[in-house]
């Protein structure tokens, strides 16, 4: 992004990338994309391209990190050096450390940690290309990878952001809107349990706008949730066709 556009939303309420205020970007989900992982998923959310892989439940390494009464979920969110306009150093930044933590905490409520004592699940998320909203797309992919690994879950976790651009509350901000907009509210949600597992915000919103943004994000989440379920089924439908 080299130049600041004058307006992010035109008079008709159409955003710079041609979407309406409550419109999601194109989302493409694929499950079982990495042969060596126990579970994996690939997500394209607009221009975001993200891979997630889950390993486990397996023995913890190093052993002293194992917990006697529950499974340990470890999560690494990492951005490829070429994923952003200016090369990002491959060393984990403070932002990546924080995101790894909040992504892990957004997924833990979905898992039956207490049923797998002394084990660990390792979750690796690689952002291959970033265009705003990578933490949400990462959660969507990570939940699919865990499900694909066959780890029982209370529900899939799905994430989507809403925010405020100029005077309008909008769904699913992309990079330019995230940087130049007023506020960004990423939400992770388990639709069947009506449970919000991640909520962050930066920018300034009135209480009413905040409520509207959270509600809008949850509607977005529910749409992606349907695609998630479809993606999981699709993996097995392909196998069936071969058998016939």
């Amino acid at each position, binding site marked *: 992004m080299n130049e600041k556009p004058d307006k992010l939303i035109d008079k008709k309420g159409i955003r710079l990338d041609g979407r309406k205020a409550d419109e999601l970007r194109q989302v493409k989900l694929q499950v079982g994309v990495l042969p060596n992982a126990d579970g994996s998923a690939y997500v394209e959310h607009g221009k975001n391209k993200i891979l997630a892989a889950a390993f486990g439940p397996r023995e913890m390494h190093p052993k002293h990190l194992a917990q006697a009464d529950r499974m340990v979920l470890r999560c690494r969110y990492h951005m490829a050096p070429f994923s952003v306009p200016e090369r990002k150093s491959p060393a984990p930044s403070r932002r990546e450390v924080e995101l790894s*933590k*909040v992504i892990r905490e957004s997924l833990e*409520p979905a898992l039956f940690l207490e049923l797998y004592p002394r084990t660990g699940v390792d979750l690796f998320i690689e952002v291959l290309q970033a265009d705003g909203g990578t933490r949400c797309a990462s959660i969507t992919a990570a939940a699919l990878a865990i499900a694909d690994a066959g780890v029982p879950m209370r529900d899939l976790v799905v994430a989507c952001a809403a925010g405020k651009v100029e005077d309008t509350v909008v769904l699913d901000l992309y990079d330019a809107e995230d940087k130049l907009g007023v506020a960004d509210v990423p939400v992770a949600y388990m639709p069947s349990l009506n449970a*919000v597992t991640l*909520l962050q915000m930066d920018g300034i*919103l009135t*209480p009413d706008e905040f409520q509207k943004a959270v509600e809008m994000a*949850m509607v977005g989440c529910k749409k992606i949730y349907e695609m998630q379920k479809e993606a999981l089924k699709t993996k097995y439908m392909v196998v069936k066709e071969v058998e016939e």
Partner: protein
Amino acid sequence: MSTLVTRVRLKQITQLIEKGKRLDERGLLDYRDIKIEQGLIEKAEGSAKVLLGKTEILVGVKVETGEPFPDTPNEGVQTVNAELVPLAHPNFEPGPPDENSIELARIVDRGIRESHAIDTEKLCIEPGKKVFVVFIDVYVLNYDGNLIDASALAAMAALLNTKMPNYEIKDGELKMKQGYTPLPMKSHPITVTIGKIGNTLIVDPILEEEQVMEARITMAINEQGNICAIQKGGSGFFTPQQILEASKIAQQKAEEMRKKLDW
């Protein structure tokens, strides 16, 4: 940041909270006593110590000159760092910052940054080349729960106590002059963290309560009662209704504290 608490104790805490009571006999939505002391580190440009019950936070602010970020050439730079100093708790270990201290620093940073608390445009010396950099260092001296609110409060108190060196530019060179001016501030955000134990929401948990807390949600509130930053933490969840309730609690608590502090 888990510590050893007996199961009996954890059960006792949960049962008390269900009945609307707490170990230290506070109400569910009461803060512990807050003591703020400003300017106790003379060598720092600003400093403050906050005692929230037994939780003790010292914040030092250093103001130095440096380069602005390329995307904001006319603005000064704000950085927050947090140290869980090993003398504060047996579980704090020396070494590079772990995810807990990084998260703490980033929550404090977000509250100050997103509310535009520091008037960063007034920290510009020469656009694109030289600006003031405000280093906010959070030092946890004693840990008894709710590090986030105590740290955010101490950081704001230290910023309000910060003096900037006077300067002039002579023949293109920066020269420091005698005397100081207060750091230009635009807003005074107040940060409130709400914890969830069972289905009950509480504020200002002590360390033992944090061990049974499933999740927390932190909100920074500005003078207009608007929300400027949020962070959910912990491995539990909130229902959408609980989030709305939490935002109401945060606004009410922030307003009460603002009156008390006269910010």
